[in-house]
């Protein structure tokens, strides 16, 4: 599904979620080269750096919540998962946004439990 696409991962993204990306054919790259920017925590320093970059203020860098990958792993109709629902805004904006629209889709944790494989 992600054949030929490059993804960057914030340090807050778990190995399980990264693995889904790779299993679907995605490559891991640095921020500059990445087509997709994934994070699980808008206040993590890696992600903060993006929110303060010129690319971000010029509308060239949207951060998506990495639960998007869990949603894909949990469904048969992978293309039906709307990437647009997983926009991760800066932490300082989240409170205000939540006040207007309720919780974010990626805050409904129970939907994004990945089946844990024992890797012992």
């Amino acid at each position, binding site marked *: 599904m992600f054949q030929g696409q490059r993804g960057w991962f914030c340090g807050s993204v778990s190995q399980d979620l990264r693995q889904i990306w790779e299993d679907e054919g995605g490559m891991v790259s640095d921020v500059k080269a990445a087509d997709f920017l994934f994070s699980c925590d808008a206040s993590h320093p890696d992600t903060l750096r993006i929110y303060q970059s010129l690319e971000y203020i010029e509308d*060239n860098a949207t951060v998506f919540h990495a639960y998007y990958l869990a949603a894909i792993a949990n469904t048969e109709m992978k293309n039906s*998962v709307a990437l647009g629902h997983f926009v991760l805004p800066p932490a300082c904006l989240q409170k205000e946004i939540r006040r*207007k*629209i309720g919780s974010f889709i990626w805050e409904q944790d129970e939907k994004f439990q990945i089946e844990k494989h024992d890797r012992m």
Partner: protein
Amino acid sequence: ATDSCSRMLKYTCSGCIVARKLLNSRNFSKFLHSCAYQCVHHKVIMEAEDKYKNELRKTFICAKKILLTPCRRRQLCKES
């Protein structure tokens, strides 16, 4: 289930339904801005992010100005 149904109804603009193949971190924001209609979800996020970006833009411009005022420039020349 009713909750997720009502969520789905509330969430229907191009930003919600356009195929992932066409979208990524590099074009999503521009794409959303180009849409004539945004759902509540996307409109609220977009407006909040735009406000934040404008603030940042101002601080960037301020920083540049400080660096480029003639006085500061002379200083820089002397230093180098």
